[in-house]
């Protein structure tokens, strides 16, 4: 994250940023992002996955193979696991984890790398695992079983602005996630048929489930579930348009800029990470963190927050368009795969 820069280098970066017009090493204006590439569905064994890279000059595969890198690259994948539910809890949880590839941080010792990982994990956890974002359809059998959503991310390369990249990858992976459709299964003693046939429930008649002759309490009804065999991989997560994106404002007194490279990151005194979501076009703030040894004041934060909302909305619209495109591609692919298997 921080590469060692000399005083002169820092002064050079700062003074060129503060000159009019502001100058950056790669010729961008302060509000420009480097090119962002998003691809979803990259891990076939995950329930949802995405790869996001910022600042890779070549996105085509042939060029990639040549090793034309130099960008920040993050992969996020969602795995759903069946989890038991404790007493009086609704069940289901979102667990986040960030691992940093040592290749991305060759200058860090392994304890420092662990600290970095746990810091990023705790940021991600405090934002995405917050009860206000909890998707309701993670519950399988109310009070008994639920999906535990595990969101694992790996940072493969860091060329600055890793948190924005990370949050974008998380959002893409969570939007890409399909929760397998399940059907509840109920065991009932033979001969005691329910008068009202419930067509959403699969009644297993052949087995004499947990209720025995000695059982005096009311049978609990639904006890287990089975996976529905259907061409679709399942439904999307509920309220998936509220997973936020992050905008990092790099603050030098009197100006701020976006998408810092690692050199720029180590030359500025203060960063403000702002996480916004726009469910239904309405902006909601999902997290705010300050990092660095500088100070700010409330009037400055007010201006920055207004700007951050604008930048986040731009990023959001761009990402939405890309994700919609990826989704169209995905459902076509999934359908082809299913019918292709049937024909064989």
């Amino acid at each position, binding site marked *: 994250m921080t590469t060692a820069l000399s005083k002169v280098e820092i002064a050079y970066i700062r003074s060129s940023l503060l000159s009019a017009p502001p100058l950056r090493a790669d010729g961008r204006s302060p509000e420009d992002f480097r090119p962002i590439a998003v691809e979803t569905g990259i891990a076939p064994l995950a329930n949802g996955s995405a790869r996001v890279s910022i600042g890779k000059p070549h996105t085509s595969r042939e060029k990639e193979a040549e090793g034309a890198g130099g960008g920040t690259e993050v992969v996020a994948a969602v795995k759903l696991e069946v989890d038991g539910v404790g007493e009086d809890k609704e069940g289901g949880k979102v667990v986040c984890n960030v691992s940093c590839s040592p290749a991305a941080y060759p200058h860090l010792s392994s304890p420092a790398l662990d600290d970095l990982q746990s810091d990023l994990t705790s940021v991600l956890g405090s934002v995405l695992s917050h009860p206000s974002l909890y998707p309701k359809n993670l519950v399988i059998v109310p009070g008994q079983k639920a999906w535990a959503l595990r969101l694992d991310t790996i940072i493969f390369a860091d060329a600055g602005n890793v948190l924005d990249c990370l949050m974008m990858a998380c959002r893409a992976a969570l939007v890409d996630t399909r929760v397998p459709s399940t059907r509840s299964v109920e065991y009932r003693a033979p001969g005691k048929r329910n008068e009202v046939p419930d067509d959403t429930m699969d009644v297993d008649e052949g087995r004499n489930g947990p209720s025995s002759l000695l059982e005096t309490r009311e049978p609990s009804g639904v006890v287990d579930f089975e996976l529905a065999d259907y061409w679709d991989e399942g439904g999307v997560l509920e309220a998936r348009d509220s997973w936020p994106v992050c905008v990092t404002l790099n603050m030098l007194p009197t100006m701020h800029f976006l998408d810092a490279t690692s050199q720029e990151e180590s030359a500025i005194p203060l960063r403000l990470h702002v996480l916004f979501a726009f469910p239904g076009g309405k902006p909601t*703030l999902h997290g705010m963190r300050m990092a660095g040894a500088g100070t700010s004041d409330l009037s400055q934060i007010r201006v920055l927050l207004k700007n951050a909302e604008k930048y986040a909305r731009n990023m959001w619209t761009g990402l939405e368009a890309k994700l919609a495109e990826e989704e169209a591609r995905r459902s076509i692919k999934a359908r082809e795969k299913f019918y292709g298997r049937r024909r064989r």
Partner: protein
Amino acid sequence: MAQSTFDRRRVNGPEESFPPVFDDEDDGGLGWVAMRNRGAEDIRPIFLQPGLVSQANGSAYIETENTKLACAVYGPRQSKTTTYSERGRLNVEVKFAPFSCVRRRAPLRDAEDRAVAIAVHQSIVSSICLELFPKSTIDVFIVVIENDGTEGCIASGSIAASTALADAGIEMLGLVASCSASVRGDEIRLDPVEKEVAAADGTVILACMPALSSVTNVYQSGRVSAQGALKCMELCQGRCIDVHAVMAQSLLSSRASMP
């Protein structure tokens, strides 16, 4: 507990433990209303005492109702690492006592310790003149004796750390005061306790130096509108001025009582 994380030097307690469930804990629908026994913009009374740990260069103990923590500052002392650094390093470590929470916390380091430490570090780092301490480290150790919500811990931790730094005579730009707020709907409550945080949509923690009217840390989680967050920050900054007075008073009286 897995064998690898088993610490033989400590009394480890049972493998699993559960907090007792009380009948009166479930106070029905009015939980959010009944939780508050003070005004929405009132903070809990603060007891702050510098200089309790005699072997530390500076220390402070803070108690705000059920949040109790002790902070000790050692340094500036020579950095253990061999690399030269022009600026001093600030090292913050937070430890939760095993009995500090409703559920027992294993005495091993966990993620929350580090998250609180990072937040406290961010709150106080810009107040210290670290450029005056090349090649040195300032260690800040915080022990949470009783925990009533992470938000309260971060806010009180920052206050205690800043007071302890002042008590140690370390040069600072100003004292850092901190205050937290919780938002539910349009309602803002300052200095929430753990239950209020759990029932709220989102929380904001602000750390600032009231003497310079500059903000050193903003820590927001959960769902809040941008206007709501700004409102919270304004209210918190107002309260921080009061907290600052408490800190200054406690430092003055501890100096006066010294021989």
